[in-house]
């Protein structure tokens, strides 16, 4: 899923400064699971904003709503009668949701309430870590299920580099070295000969480097 972080409160307040009527809009998918933009977080943030504005003697209306998905045109429809009535919408969805909402309602000012960080997993309660960068040509079958693009700080395909130490990446002691993990698995499965294969340069055109990506399935179009 997509992981995000709440923007610092002061940054949000300065973004909202010119606007009186505000809608804080949550999303019920990824950002709910990573506890940053669901109904609960919408309620908390909305009351924080109200409190601060009351304290600062600023007259203001802060509304709350959470929809199923902000990245899906179908769910954005339910906002069509109300959304025009606010000065700004603070979206707690990921960057996709923020943009898509603004595309659907071009007259509405949509502001980001979170920093979208990565595609990852919930390792345990309160800990999310990155796993995939959507390179568009998955190599996990060659790297024992560990992504070298994402989990190696240098996206090395013939690792590990000379900075790998005691299973940790050179960038910091809390980050596992992806190549250490890959080699451990090669060894366990008796597949070290796979390690000796030289992997050729990757074609990055399927990744972000090829420009904005699109997937179209004509058989699904109505």
């Amino acid at each position, binding site marked *: 899923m997509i992981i995000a972080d709440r923007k610092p409160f002061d940054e949000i307040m300065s973004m909202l400064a010119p606007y009186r009527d505000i809608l804080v809009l949550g999303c019920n998918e990824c950002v709910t699971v990573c506890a940053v933009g669901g109904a609960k977080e919408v309620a908390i943030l909305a009351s924080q904003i109200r409190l601060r504005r009351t304290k600062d003697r600023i007259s203001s209306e802060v509304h709350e709503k959470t929809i199923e998905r902000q990245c899906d045109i179908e769910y954005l429809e339910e906002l069509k009668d109300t959304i025009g009535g606010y000065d700004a919408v603070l979206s707690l969805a990921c960057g996709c949701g923020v943009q898509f909402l603004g595309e659907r309602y071009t007259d509405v000012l949509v502001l980001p309430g979170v920093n979208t960080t990565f595609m990852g997993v919930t390792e345990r309660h309160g800990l999310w870590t990155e796993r995939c960068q959507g390179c568009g040509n998955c190599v996990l079958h060659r790297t024992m299920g560990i992504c070298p693009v994402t989990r190696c700080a240098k996206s090395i395909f013939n690792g590990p580099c*000379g900075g790998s130490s005691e299973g940790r990446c050179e960038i910091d002691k809390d980050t596992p070295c992806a190549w250490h993990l890959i080699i451990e698995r090669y060894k366990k499965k008796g597949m070290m000969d796979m390690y000796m294969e030289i992997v050729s340069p990757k074609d990055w055109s399927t990744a972000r480097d090829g420009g904005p990506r699109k997937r179209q399935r004509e058989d699904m179009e109505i």
Partner: protein
Amino acid sequence: MTAQGNLKRVLQSGAFAVTAECGPPRGADPDMIRIKAKILKGYVDSVNVTDNQTAVVRMSSFASCVILKDMGIDPVMQMVCRDRNRIAIQSDVLGASALGIKNILCLSGDHQRFGDHKGAKNVFDIDSLQLIQCIRDMRDEGRFLSGEEVKGRPDIFIGCVENPFADPFEIRAMRLAKKAAAGAQFCQTQCIFNIEKFERWMEMVRGLGVHEKVSIIAGITPLKSVGMANYMKRNVPGMDVPDKLIDRLRGTPKEKAPEEGISICVETIDRLKGIKGVCGIHIMAIGWEEIIPEIVKSAGLYPRP
């Protein structure tokens, strides 16, 4: 093809090679390079110029190498994958060869997290192994990575690095074998302080027969003080400085520490000379280049062939 570089000549003659590293300045003054190079001239067979080492901006390795070349020194241009994509890399390989640079050392490059531009975007389009292969194919096959033809092949002696002290230890010789298969002709290692471990690594290297394909040049760094030894141990990734070495420096009066550092260095070189498959030494006297002539002389490696 033009005449071969000095480093290649020395290695092929079977003589014990001596190379040194020169860190370029953090400014545009070419004399900073010339001053360091003048000290080294005649004492070493070639001089490496680092490529924005530890991700700190310095004069480019390419330009510094041209300055060295003009002084009659055979430069080794270090090239990292951190800052350039395959387009820029191949273009620099052509340019370097055109200006008479004969040696390129291929590295991944330290992550920008260590440097002075932590907010930089990194590239890592290809990795160091792919870089080795890329230069070899440009030279031997006359092909760019795209498969297009190179008109006027670059004449490059291809180097790589390996760190016998990084983990997992058991793959470090295999990784050098991979680099040899990709086209590496010489290898300069990480600084050796833990010589026993280096010997174990060399045993594995010989076991794979890699020493017959790649000229292995052992890395040496003179320790100026106990503080420097501690710093290297704690802060430089993949550096193995044994406690007994630190204790030896600690037991030396402060003003005698540099002398002791040189003795350690010369003892290490003596031991390295006896290891089968070691073809030379690479001296990385970080910020202490002026000591290199003395080390070379004390180690009985002067005059140079």
